[in-house]
């Protein structure tokens, strides 16, 4: 049902209601029947009932006589009342009052609905969503469709093959592992499938490559000794188990064997670097969505991909606002931002997470370790050292076009600017906005944002001082005052 139809129906409903209310007013004024006349009806009915009861023998003759006398007295009283009363003259012009009231009906209803309703939101019955053109489906809907298809045809290997990486991308690690297992059950083992399984299991175990996860990578390596991904993760497993030398050796060999443009070469080099800087266990990371997964995602339309990413991340961020104790959730959010190349957001998320876990050194250490592993440090500058493909690698591999990325970032920045307009007290938000504009080269916008921010914090020297200093660090100066 289109928006137009809804308004048309609303017009008819309003009209119908108003006419129903107005009709009594159009009638000729009737004389009112006095209430005493109604009382008489009741008393007469009571007398009849009394006779029936007496005839049935339900009450004795004496009781009936008494009751009859009592009702008779009431009847006489009502009669007297009727005679005493003259017909009431009605008030002069109720039509004006009533007319005004009826006019209020459309005003109140349309005004309130404009505020509360979402007239442009169409109905979205599930069945309809599942049947529309797949290019118009969101990623969630596509997954649901694939799931429904697989419920009916559980031995469709292609379906599981598509779903495995997508689940991984959506953070549904257990389901991803199940999908890979199903695929392996149907089509047998190969390195790629085992890698997928190992990765899903590892992610499900908060990034620890051990037990079944490590076993899957090792099996993959057995089947394909040259597989770079398997090699990389087996080494991660070794590092996490404390065998740093062994891991470093494996990474070094991997970096030598791999083609120069292979993401795994970069990843291995960074892992070596990281293993020198930090204890291996602290660097234990959840493997982010990998190049492959992003490549899979990139086979969807650009619009799907965008809505998929933005929707997922926004949901997660919203959840964490309500429930900031979810350490794993913060890790997922940071990873998501990092993978999308939104390093500033990732850093901001890390900062929020650190705030949420202030006073819990264990959790803070884990968060820092994790963030470092995906190339995010608590601050504006991202740490370059991280095992695993970084956001840049991913962005390259995903063949996301430059314009796509640009529009995605612009959308994000616009949203932020809009939010700040409603909620100008968000100091961090202003800093993020200024930084975003500065990074994107929109210096004028950055300056304008700084001016706005300073106006918002007028009279708060601490905040405005911090913002000015922050902007200065990005080369943004307040606009010269024109007075």
């Amino acid at each position, binding site marked *: 049902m289109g928006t137009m139809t809804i308004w048309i129906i609303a017009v008819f409903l309003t009209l119908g209601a108003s006419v129903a209310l107005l009709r009594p007013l159009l009638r000729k004024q009737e004389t009112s029947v006095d209430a005493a006349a109604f009382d008489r009806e009741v008393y007469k009915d009571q007398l009849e009932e009394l006779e029936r009861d007496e005839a049935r023998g339900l009450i004795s003759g004496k009781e009936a006589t008494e009751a009859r006398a009592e009702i008779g007295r009431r009847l006489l009283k009502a009669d007297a009342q009727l005679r005493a009363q003259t017909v009431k003259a009605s008030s002069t012009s109720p039509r004006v009052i009533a007319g005004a009231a009826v006019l209020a009906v459309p005003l109140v209803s349309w005004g309130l609905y404009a505020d509360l309703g979402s007239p442009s939101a169409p109905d979205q019955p599930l069945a309809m969503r599942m049947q529309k053109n797949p290019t118009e489906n969101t990623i969630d809907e596509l997954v649901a469709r694939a799931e429904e298809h697989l419920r009916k045809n559980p031995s469709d290997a292609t379906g599981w093959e598509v779903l495995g990486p997508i689940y991984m991308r959506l953070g549904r690690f257990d389901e991803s592992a199940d999908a890979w297992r199903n695929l392996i059950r149907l089509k047998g083992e190969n390195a790629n499938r085992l890698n997928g399984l190992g990765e899903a299991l590892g992610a499900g175990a908060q990034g620890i490559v051990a037990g079944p996860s490590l076993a899957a990578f090792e099996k993959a390596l057995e089947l394909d000794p040259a597989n770079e991904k398997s090699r990389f993760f087996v080494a991660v497993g070794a590092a996490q188990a404390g065998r740093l030398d062994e891991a470093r050796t494996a990474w070094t060999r991997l970096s030598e064997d791999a083609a120069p443009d292979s993401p795994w070469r970069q990843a291995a080099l960074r892992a070596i670097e990281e293993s020198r800087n930090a204890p291996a266990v602290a660097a234990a990371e959840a493997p982010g969505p990998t190049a492959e997964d992003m490549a899979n995602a990139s086979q969807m339309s650009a619009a799907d991909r965008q*809505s998929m990413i933005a929707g997922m991340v926004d949901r997660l961020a919203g959840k964490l606002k309500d429930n900031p104790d979810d350490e794993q959730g913060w890790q997922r959010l940071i990873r998501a931002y990092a993978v999308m190349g939104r390093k500033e957001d990732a850093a901001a998320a890390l900062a929020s997470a650190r705030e949420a876990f202030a006073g819990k050194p264990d959790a803070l250490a884990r968060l820092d370790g994790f963030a470092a592993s995906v190339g995010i440090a608590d601050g504006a500058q991202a740490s370059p050292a991280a095992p695993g493909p970084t956001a840049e690698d991913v962005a390259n591999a995903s063949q996301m076009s430059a314009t796509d990325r640009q529009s995605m970032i612009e959308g994000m920045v616009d949203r932020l600017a809009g939010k700040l307009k409603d909620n100008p007290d968000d100091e961090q938000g202003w800093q993020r906005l200024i930084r975003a504009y500065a990074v994107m080269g929109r210096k004028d916008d950055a300056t304008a944002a700084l001016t706005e921010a300073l106006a918002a914090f007028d009279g708060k020297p601490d905040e405005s001082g911090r913002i000015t200093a922050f902007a200065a660090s990005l080369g943004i100066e307040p606009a010269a005052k024109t007075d």
Partner: protein
Amino acid sequence: MVEIGHFALVLALAVGLVQSVLPIYGARTGDERLMGMAAPAAVTVFALVTISFVALIQAYVTSDFSVLNVVENSHSAKPLIYKISGTWGNHEGSMLLWVFILSLFGALVALFGGNLPSSLRATVIAVQGWIGTAFFLFILFTSNPFIRVASPPVEGQDLNPILQDIGLAIHPPLLYLGYVGFSVSFAFAVAALIDGRVDAAWARWVRPWTLAAWIFLTAGIAMGSYWAYYELGWGGFWFWDPVENASFMPWLAGTALLHSAIVMEKRSALKIWTILLSIITFSFSLLGTFLVRSGVLTSVHAFATDPSRGVFILMILMVFIGGSLALFAWRAGTLTAGGLFQPISREGALVLNNLFLTTAAATVLIGTLYPLLLESVTGEKISVGAPFFNLTFGPLMLPLLLAVPFGPLLAWKRGDLFAAGQRLVAAFAVALAAVAVVLLFVDRTALLAALGAGLAFWLLAGSLTDLALKAGIGKVSAPVMLRRLRGLPGSAFGTAIAHFGLGVTLLGIVSVTAFQTENILTMAKGDTLPVAGYTLRFDETVPVQGPNYTADEARFSLVNAAGKKIAGISSAKRMYTARRMPTTEAGIHTFIFSQLYVSLGDPASNGGMVVRIWYKPLVTLIWIGGLVMMFGGIVSLADRRLRIGAPARSAKGTEAAATGGRA
């Protein structure tokens, strides 16, 4: 369709505002046309709320996850019936059901109110409009079920699994029909107070509406009790839980109102008391809604941290309860008192009934609210459970139940207690016999149970005595008796049937409380247990896949003394996948009035299952009694006496009325 529903609800608020103001203004100024707007306004509001309610149901049925309320309370794999019942299985939807039923009653008053004086009708409908407007505002601003989600998920969070049950699908509508039905008597009471006069038609109207609400409330409570019995897996039928008490208080007050309305209708006495009772009864209904809906019961703390809803309901409570009681205090003096009667009379008996029922309601109120008050003041959490209620409620009920058979036998105005006692000798003998039978043949030590059974039979035999006497037993021949019985008014039958139902329920309660047997044991495959003269055998455990749950179903066979299997019983533990919530499904085998109840516990270490097995003698009588009471209410409601005509309307109204013409 969703947005149409939302718009219709907003429009209903706008029309409700007109309904609240113009008719009563017309009634005060004597303007027939403004009063005439009451009925179309009420009917319009009903039509609009219906559209709105249907739109929400449609969103549930089609799993439209662009509606937040559907996302939070539905799941595409849920069976259709629970998709529909999910509409009112949550706060927002149930509030929409509440106003839907309220507007239904408003429309019914409008449609059937032709025989009411127009100013009374206009005022009553306007008062209903006030309640409706308050709830429309509450829904639209704190509990809007039509809020949309920008990017709809593909799956909902499912309805709380313990609500996915046929019992709870129909329990809320029945309960609300009861709660909201009392709004009609409330509106009549407020209208009488505003008018400063009680029309003769007042009691004739209030009694059937109260009766209708009472029937639904009885059904709702009985349904809720049976649901708790089989779904929660504890095998109890009443827990004195605050949620149950919330519905029990209006029932007690409503039962009192039902009886005082009889006095008012028959004798024009107890007018002021009946008006007060109407206010109290609906206040209990509002309080019940508040207790269950504000979240105050789950946690006083949670209520204090997110108070927007609770505070709104609290304001509604204060305005309607406080306002109507203040109005009563101010205006009650202007009402004229009615007929006089002796203490020993039908009226006196009904006053006694009222005293006990209202005291009982107050007892329940204290037991329900005291823990809440204590928690909000001192932070201490206590629960007032069965011991408190057994000590207070029980002793209050005992004299009331003893007196029940006397009431209908006493004459109006002046009764003869001794004569009534003489006529009840047979019933008393039956009760004594019941006591003796229990002591001699069931359990020699169960004196209390025997007395309880005696009381139950006293009620049963007493109500039959009432009918027999009305038919003229001992005075006329059998064919005449039969004819007279057939000629009895519906209300006489209704009274006897409802009192009989009370006895039936009491018998069930006494029997289960005193004589149920409980076994808790670990059973492995093939184990047997002798129970109630049969043998229960544990056959197997099988996994079952439901539409939106998986279950482990344990199957038992019931074997009689000859070794023949007479029934299979299966009891299950379900796991609802969406919410990861387990439920127990008790296995119940019914032998007419008694039941064998099998509930699964956890798997034992030796591979068996912990199983709780109850034999509950005569347990179904508890709910059958409720059905009988309801049936009594329906028979009474069908009484022709409740229909009266209206004086004809003409240009010379008074003249026509004087000739007594009927419309």
